[in-house]
């Protein structure tokens, strides 16, 4: 790290060095990099320390793949499923990126568990690291929240039903339960408002909170410094330190490479499937949450009647409290795990309990008739994923219905519609006068302007209309009557279209007045 001295010795230097010098004078980037890379690690670099940066790496991977998914995904009940099917079945690399994102969430949970276990077993949270631990505990909850909110977004069968169950669990909370469920769902039932809420939480709120807490976590980590191996003093390290760069950086990088290689292999060989679109009236579907929620899922089976509050709220609440308050409960500076029997036992009980609950839940699902139903659901999901992409076509029915309705109503309107199309009005004002980028909507124009004034304006557009490209309409009085009758029959405007009435000043244009 004696670059600066070397540079001053050769002021000419290479171009890259000169650019870096220029930057350094203005930003202090060299000093910053040095501070980041020269962090001393008591006792030296180790593979055991890779999990934290591994989590940061997965977070970045999730951001990158998530932003990619958002490029084609739309969060509405009508279109979410189709847009995701488009991503997985049509767009080049779409199935791969979605699989990376989906498997990435599982990888996040696994590496999070490893990070927790490493920190706990090494007692690295001890010695003035309470806030560091707390910020990590908050991050763990946020990661679980990302898993929960992301699961709904595909809006397929399992997404819908798993979220229906998940939001019902919130309803078990005493007093405010029903209110909580309604906040999560945006109402009583699961629908497009729920999807919007989960989308906003998954894409904006939770990621923003995560970035804030990651920053705090890293800052607090650097403030306290690495705790080093298990026999090190966590407050005043005595072991010979090794700098973060290069060995630990290389370990971290290789771990990131391992994660990417594993995820990419999985995503390539076993792409994540997409099930048929959510059908709320399906009474046979058996929802199963993501694997990391299975212990909780299984746990809920054992509680009924008045004990529910104890099982669903109190016990998980106590475990969560114990998790959050770990550095306040296990306070001594003693780090060796065999000299901390009570915390070790508590964590061992909870972890093995969760693992066995997860296994039990898998075993329960092997039994008939559940096994058949789940196998059938998986078959349906595979079949749907393999089927060719079907585009979203709601517009089709709507347009057809509108056309028939008009032709059935009034021959004058029919004639007006033909004129509207043939004279090219529809080219700018859109089919059914709904407006386009070129010209405003004409829907409702007959309620805003009297017929004679409208006819006058069509014959002789005002300056503002002309500036927008509106030509004079050359029509006989009969044709004009038909055209206005048609305009009067139009439905609702497209939501984003401007109204033509805003282009017309309140008083009749002098030119328009003399036209008829």
């Amino acid at each position, binding site marked *: 790290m004696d670059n600066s001295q070397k540079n001053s010795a050769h002021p000419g230097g290479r171009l890259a060095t000169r650019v870096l010098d220029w930057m350094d004078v203005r930003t202090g980037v060299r000093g910053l990099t040095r501070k980041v890379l020269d962090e001393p690690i008591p006792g030296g670099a180790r593979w055991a320390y890779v999990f934290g940066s591994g989590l940061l790496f997965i977070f970045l991977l999730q951001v990158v793949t998530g932003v990619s998914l958002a490029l084609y995904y739309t969060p509405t009940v009508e279109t979410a499923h189709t847009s995701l099917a488009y991503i997985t079945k049509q767009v080049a690399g779409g199935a791969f990126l979605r699989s990376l994102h989906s498997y990435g969430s599982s990888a996040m949970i696994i590496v999070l568990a490893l990070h927790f276990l490493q920190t706990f077993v090494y007692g690295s949270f001890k010695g003035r690291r309470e806030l560091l631990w707390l910020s990590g505990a908050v991050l763990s909850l946020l990661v679980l929240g990302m898993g929960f909110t992301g699961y709904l977004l595909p809006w397929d069968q399992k997404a819908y039903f798993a979220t229906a169950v998940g939001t019902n669990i919130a309803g078990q909370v005493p007093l405010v339960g029903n209110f909580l469920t309604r906040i999560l769902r945006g109402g009583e039932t699961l629908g497009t408002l729920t999807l919007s809420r989960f989308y906003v939480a998954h894409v904006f709120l939770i990621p923003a909170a995560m970035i804030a807490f990651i920053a705090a976590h890293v800052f607090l980590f650097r403030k306290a410094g690495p705790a080093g191996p298990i026999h090190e003093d966590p407050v005043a390290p005595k072991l010979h330190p090794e700098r973060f760069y*290069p060995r630990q950086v290389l370990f971290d990088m290789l771990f990131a490479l391992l994660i*990417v290689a594993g995820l990419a292999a999985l995503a390539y060989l076993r792409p994540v499937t997409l099930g048929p679109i959510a059908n709320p009236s399906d009474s046979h579907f058996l929802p199963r949450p993501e694997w990391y929620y299975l212990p909780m899922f299984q746990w809920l089976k054992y509680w009924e009647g008045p004990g529910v509050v104890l099982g669903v709220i109190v016990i998980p609440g106590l475990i969560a409290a114990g998790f959050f308050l770990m550095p306040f409960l296990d306070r001594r500076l003693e780090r060796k795990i065999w000299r901390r029997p009570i915390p070790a036992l508590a964590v061992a009980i909870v972890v093995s309990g969760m693992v066995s609950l997860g296994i039990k839940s898998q075993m329960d699902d092997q039994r008939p008739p559940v096994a058949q139903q789940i196998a059938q659901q998986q078959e349906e999901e595979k079949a749907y994923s393999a089927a060719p992409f079907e585009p979203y076509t709601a517009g089709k029915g709507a347009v057809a219905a509108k056309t028939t309705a008009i032709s059935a109503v009034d021959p004058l309107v029919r004639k007006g519609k033909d004129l509207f*199309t043939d004279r090219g009005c529809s080219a700018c004002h859109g089919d059914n006068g709904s407006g386009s980028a070129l010209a405003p909507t004409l829907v409702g124009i007959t309620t805003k302007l009297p017929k004679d004034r409208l006819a006058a304006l069509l014959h002789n557009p005002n300056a503002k209309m002309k500036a927008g490209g509106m030509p004079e309409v*050359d029509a006989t009085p009969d044709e004009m009557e038909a055209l206005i009758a048609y305009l009067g029959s139009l439905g609702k405007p497209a939501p984003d279209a401007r109204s033509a009435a805003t282009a017309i000043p309140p008083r009749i244009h002098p030119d328009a007045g003399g036209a008829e």
Partner: protein
Amino acid sequence: MTQEYNCPLENKECAVCLAQHSAQITRRSFFASMLGACAGLIATVVGTPMLRYVLYPVLAGAKTEKWTEVGDVTEFEKLDTPVTKTISLVQRDGWREVVSDQPVFISRSSNGMLQVLSPICPHLGCSVAWHENQNKFVCPCHGGQFAADGKRLSGPPPRGLDPLDVQIKDGKLEVQFQYFRSNVPDRQLLS
């Protein structure tokens, strides 16, 4: 970098120092290139599919032919002046399929063959209309005029109305509706 050798002489003649120094440089550049290789590998694995993903709508240009029915051929057999037909055009818009009404003109070309003309003015893209009393197509925007067979008569358009590809299948006249570049003298297909 685990142990830094403190040279007692602090000068360049110290052979041990020189050896140590060059060893450190080799070691450092080895680590740096290892890191660079790892980062490059990760960026490739994630970046390549992302690039294809983002560019998909741009590169997926080769569209399949899409024929839209205009009507029975018999309907047009005795046609002498152009008629307007509104066809239901099915178009793909990303993951949506949009059906829109699209008027087209059926007329006879100069050699008497049936042809389907696009109503989009080759000048700046307004919709032209057939004027029975004047026996010509007139563009309402800038006054371009075209003969019944689509040939340009007068006005700013640089070419005549664009004939569309047609085929007759099972007695039905079918058309492939396409868009052409505006304001150029020759017919250039827009993909």
